[in-house]
């Protein structure tokens, strides 16, 4: 009796501690970056051009936006279309569906440096796209495709079959049913996946260093080499010459990632409500 009580108390203490350490680590990292970075958030950090005087993050920020847009333009139509095929056209639970799903899961577990190497060998060298925004975006597209595919698939599956029946029952064909009834209802879920993808793009360095390179200017075309904010941060801390600005840049990146995650979970909640 007494032993059981002691054991319960110890277990409770252990889980409290674990929770505390987890939370503490997160708060410590954020706090550390904020304390070191916020005082150095100056206007010069947001100047249009980067040089060794201002260490502006603006070109990298613009590149990040462009890189994200380009990657999404490639990955979203592909991923959503593939999901539509898997849910609306392929026989449910068929071999092909299972294989594609397993592949997607495996792909999403691969370290991003492997994508980077693949991108370098295939897009940069074999296709001769060079160190460019396009090579980087293509590599990132391959990387986030499984995320987009899986979340879109889940979103489509969660659309009740009664909607499809209702539409078919009115004489609508498959295409009309998909575009007018199923996809609109799945949009929030798909968006949640897209935003997750954006989060991965924004936070990515390893897949980009060997594909998009580290040129510090804002690109003038998709064949230019360019660094995104994360790569910029990596490059800065690698050089070690502008530590203050490095932390300030980290604050900005952190802010962006937190906003993106909040958006994604807000959307996911909305989806839950809708079908709940």
């Amino acid at each position, binding site marked *: 009796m007494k032993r059981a009580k002691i054991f319960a108390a110890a277990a409770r203490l252990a889980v409290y501690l674990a929770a505390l350490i987890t939370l503490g680590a997160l708060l410590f990292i954020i706090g550390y970056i904020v304390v070191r970075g916020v005082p150095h958030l100056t206007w010069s950090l947001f100047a249009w051009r980067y040089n060794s005087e201002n260490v502006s993050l603006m070109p990298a920020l613009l590149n990040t936006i462009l890189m994200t847009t380009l990657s999404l333009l490639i990955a979203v139509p592909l991923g959503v279309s593939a999901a539509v095929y898997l849910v609306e056209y392929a*026989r*449910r639970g068929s071999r092909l569906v299972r294989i594609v799903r397993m592949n997607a899961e495996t792909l999403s577990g691969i370290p991003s440096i492997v994508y980077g190497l693949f991108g370098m060998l295939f897009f940069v060298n074999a296709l001769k796209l060079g160190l460019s925004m396009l090579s980087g975006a293509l590599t990132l597209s391959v990387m986030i495709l499984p995320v987009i595919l899986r979340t879109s698939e889940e979103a489509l599956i969660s659309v*009740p079959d*009664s*909607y499809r*029946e*209702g*539409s*078919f*029952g*009115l*004489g*609508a*064909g498959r295409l*009309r049913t998909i575009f*007018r*009834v199923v996809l*609109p*209802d799945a949009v929030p879920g798909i968006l949640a996946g897209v935003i997750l993808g954006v989060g991965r793009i924004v936070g990515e360095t390893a897949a980009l260093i060997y594909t998009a390179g580290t040129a510090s200017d804002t690109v003038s075309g998709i064949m230019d080499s360019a660094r995104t904010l994360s790569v910029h941060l990596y490059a800065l801390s690698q050089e070690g010459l502008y530590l203050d600005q490095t932390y300030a840049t980290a604050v900005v990146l952190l802010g962006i990632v937190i906003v993106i995650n909040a958006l994604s979970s807000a959307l996911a909640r909305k989806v839950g409500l*809708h079908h709940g």
Partner: protein
Amino acid sequence: MDKFTIENLDLYYGEFQALKHVGLSVPEREITAFIGPSGCGKSTLLRTLNRMNDLIEGCRITGSVLLDGENIYRGMDVTLLRKRVGMVFQKPNPFPMSVYDNVAFGPRTHGVRGRAKLDDVVERSLRSAAIWDELRDRLKKDALGLSGGQQQRLCIARALAVEPEVLLMDEPTSALDPISTIRIEDLCVTLKENYTIIIVTHNMQQAARISDRTAFFLLGEVVESSDTETMFRIPHDRRTEDYITGRFG
């Protein structure tokens, strides 16, 4: 005049035979009720009449189903068939869009364009479904915000909007409260002036109240079909009698 003539119909889901040698006539502008215990094939037969079973993997059909003398399984365009033969489902299934867009969905599918024309169709359909007065100020509202009974009448309006000749109703009141049920039953009786209605129901009182003819199903066969009064007063088959007197089912 018979709207549907079903002859020697067999239907299989893979190896399982769900309908056996079904022969049945459905007269025009009357209400025909399909009754029988769960799994007897009444919903399955209903779904062969607008070919909704086409969507089910491994479903195979032999025999013939004639709509105005034309075999719906021989070269009839499914889109056109479903325009002529509308369907209302067991659970109200309005689309997650506005009341107006729900009703306009069918007409738009079949190529009706133009605001004025659509406005007209929407109003007419909602009036026919006896729900115009309740919804006239809420046309732009989300249909999922309506009550269950309103949703089902909206679904009836949605089906009527493509100007069908036949209305198939698959236990349309089984998910509704008694008051909503009565409203839908009254609506059916009104609608039969212009439409042929086939209703699947679990509820024998419902069949007795509103239908002109009744077909009794058991284990995939039509045991008996006749005008409703005869069926309920002097059933021919022992099994029909047992069922309608509540001895099983």
